[in-house]
């Protein structure tokens, strides 16, 4: 149980909505959310289809623990084929939306086809209908959110929407829910907009029950919460400083990608770090950070809630940005900060607000801008193309401007919306794109953290830190400390992290719990909630099956082992400073071992034996 066992199939071409029963045999194999939705996707679309064509489908999906009292049990994911990478896309988000969808009685929604005109899906418990979004098209997420709340006259309505960037075809557009939580990566928002679907609004008042053994579930989730509370990372570190606590740490260990990964340490890191967000500013004596906030059911509450200095050039004439909203997380602060050489905390916060307001993935946005800045400094790009703006590393003005034009798709904003890979190809410098499979890197330089190099190269959705966060082991010592510069044993480490993460992402939980939780903490919660037996072994088995399934999708989409690589810069140019000075990413030392562990051929292709072992669709 824990699943509602019902989902909605919304055919946007026909304008029809059907209720269907969840395939419980698949649920037993893939648990829910990331895994289960991927199983539906691979069954229902041609992996070779154009991601922005009506043939692609978009699945909004919850996990069996979404909407329950399990800590962090409020996640949902968006699964589709990515327009940025051509690979499978699976973006996970918190906030309140996922739990509301579950409480309305739905495990997931499959969107197929394309509407002739802009629409949004409205769900009020069992009542689901497609309504005109003509009045919403061309509006930002924040504007649409306000209009939808007013239209439905319900302050408790939960809204997930795409912004103008998605409408304009920005390839890394996100789906933003609850104003500032996002299914951020791989352009899932672009897919949503390509279907003329502006928003999904949901109000669920049925509640989430269907728990297999409620008393045992309460015991298991309470035990889990106690572990999170007592753990110094999840109990103190994350609530106090959020993920931004890492800015100084990663800089110190020399793995801070800087100025489009030309360098591995950023001299301005301390000015944009979590600590700096607590410093009172001159104008009003208030710090950037107002407080921490939690997503649905989360007892960690790492979220940042911030304001911008009202006297800052970016907002001094825009009072609409003077209030609180989602503040900087580490990846966003890194991408728009260190990677662009910008050390202006308020400019970063403003750009971050715009990413939330118009639904851009701040990692891809920042990294794409960083590549553009490098091309500008090299003379490949000039003010002629940018329309006058000097795209110099370190320019806060350029950053704010870039966020504004990507949001609207105006002028050079359309080029920046292509993502780093296509932008660099367009201007003749493909080697400057710091991407894997077309997706921009996150905030850890693989030269200073070898495990992350293998993580990026093999990630099923392109460069990503959330597919196996070996930073945890290589820098933070969780669960065990490994040497970040060492390659031995990293293939095992990466595989173990990948499998565990896939299981957590399929349960409805947040991956941040794993700074404190092991599968021994998670499996009992799933087992008490869900029918069937969910042991530690079963969970890890599900995790690996999900990973293999995603790989299978990519292979069918034409993305093979040749794309399990890193940009040349990281493979050939040694780090310039810090502990990793002179080091490159030694992918060749780890990849063959990794393929072997996965049961793949030496070229990274899937073997029949492995496909059969995991009961993957042909």
């Amino acid at each position: 149980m824990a699943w509602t066992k019902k989902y909605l199939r919304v055919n946007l071409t026909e304008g029809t909505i059907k209720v269907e029963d969840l395939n419980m045999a698949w649920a037993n194999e893939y648990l829910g959310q990331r895994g289960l939705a991927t199983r539906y996707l691979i069954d229902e679309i041609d992996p070779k289809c154009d991601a922005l064509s009506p043939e692609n489908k978009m699945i909004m999906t919850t996990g069996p623990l979404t909407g329950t009292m399990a800590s962090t049990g409020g996640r949902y994911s968006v699964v589709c084929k990515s327009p940025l990478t051509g690979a499978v896309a699976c973006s996970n988000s918190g906030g309140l939306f996922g739990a509301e969808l579950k409480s309305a009685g739905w495990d997931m929604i499959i969107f197929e086809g394309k509407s002739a005109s802009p629409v949004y899906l409205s769900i009020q418990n069992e009542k689901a209908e497609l309504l005109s979004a003509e009045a919403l098209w061309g509006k930002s997420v924040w504007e649409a959110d306000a209009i939808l709340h007013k239209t439905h006259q319900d302050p408790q309505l939960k809204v997930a929407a795409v912004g103008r960037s998605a409408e304009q075809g920005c390839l890394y557009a996100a789906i933003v829910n609850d104003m500032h939580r996002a299914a951020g990566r791989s352009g899932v928002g672009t897919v949503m907009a390509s279907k003329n679907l502006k928003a999904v609004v949901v109000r669920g008042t049925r509640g989430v029950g269907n728990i297999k053994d409620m008393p045992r579930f309460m015991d298991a989730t309470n035990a889990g919460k106690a572990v999170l509370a007592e753990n110094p990372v999840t109990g103190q570190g994350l609530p106090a400083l959020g993920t931004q606590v890492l800015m100084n740490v990663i800089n110190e260990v020399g793995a801070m990608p800087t100025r489009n990964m030309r360098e591995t340490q950023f001299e301005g890191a301390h000015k944009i770090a979590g600590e700096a967000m607590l410093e009172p500013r001159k104008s009003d004596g208030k710090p950037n950070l107002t407080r921490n906030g939690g997503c649905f059911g989360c007892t960690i509450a790492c979220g940042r809630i911030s304001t911008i200095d009202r006297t800052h050039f970016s907002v001094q004439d825009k009072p609409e940005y003077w209030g609180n909203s989602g503040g900087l997380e580490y990846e966003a602060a890194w991408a728009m900060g260190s990677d662009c050489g910008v050390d202006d905390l308020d400019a970063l916060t403003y750009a971050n607000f715009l990413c939330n307001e118009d639904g851009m993935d701040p990692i891809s946005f920042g990294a794409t801008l960083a590549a553009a800045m490098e091309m500008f400094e090299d003379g490949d790009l000039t003010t002629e193309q940018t329309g006058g703006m000097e795209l110099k590393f370190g320019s806060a003005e350029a950053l704010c401007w870039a966020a504004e034009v990507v949001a609207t798709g105006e002028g050079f904003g359309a080029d920046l919306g292509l993502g780093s890979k296509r932008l660099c190809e367009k201007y003749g410098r493909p080697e400057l794109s710091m991407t894997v499979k077309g997706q921009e890197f996150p905030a850890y330089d693989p030269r200073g953290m070898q495990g992350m190099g293998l993580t990026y190269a093999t990630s099923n959705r392109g460069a990503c830190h959330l597919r196996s966060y070996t930073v945890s082991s290589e820098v933070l010592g969780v669960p065990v400390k490994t040497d970040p510069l060492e390659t031995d044993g990293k293939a095992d480490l990466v595989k173990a992290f990948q499998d565990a993460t896939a299981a957590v992402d399929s349960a409805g939980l947040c991956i941040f719990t794993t700074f404190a939780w092991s599968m021994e903490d998670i499996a009992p919660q799933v087992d008490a909630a869900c029918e069937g037996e969910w042991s530690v072994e079963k969970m890890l088995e599900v995790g690996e099956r999900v990973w293999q399934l995603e790989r299978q999708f990519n292979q069918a989409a034409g993305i093979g082992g040749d794309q399990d690589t890193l940009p040349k810069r990281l493979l050939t140019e040694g780090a310039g400073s810090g502990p990793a000075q002179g080091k490159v990413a030694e992918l060749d030392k780890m990849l063959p071992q990794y393929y072997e562990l996965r049961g793949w051929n030496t070229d990274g292709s899937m073997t029949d034996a492995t496909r059969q072992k995991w009961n993957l669709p042909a």
Partner: protein
Amino acid sequence: MQKSLTIDPEKCTGCLQCEMACSYQSDGLFNPSKSRIKVFNFHEEGRFVPYTCTQCDEAWCLHACPVDAITLDASTGAKIVNADTCVGCKVCTIACPFGTVNYNSDTGKVAKCDLCAGDPACAKACPTDAITYVDADATGYERMKEWAAKTDAGMTAGA
């Protein structure tokens, strides 16, 4: 000393564990929309405010009930809705100036905080101590009571 729920919005992160705990205690499932405690999100202010019945002395709900369905639990001070007696007339929902008695159309009855017979589930579930169950003279509660006095339904003493 009688205890009361004390709410400190400064500590609230908006996780809604209290709402789930409340609905689980009352209805056996996780359903924030049926919770007797509600966390309000002031997005622009960056503030979360949990809010529920203060079990005020004036007890407008209790006095307004035409069928004596709301009674005082002497041990906790809670004003309790007796679901068997409540006819669902909703007069208490408009009488309570704090808006903490709500009608549940599924049951046809009204619902309000009953302090879980002296062991409030919301306080136990709160991970940050934003909601605690402590001696009644603690801060915060008093402020809410002051406001209660201000709203007194035309019963202010003195000419």
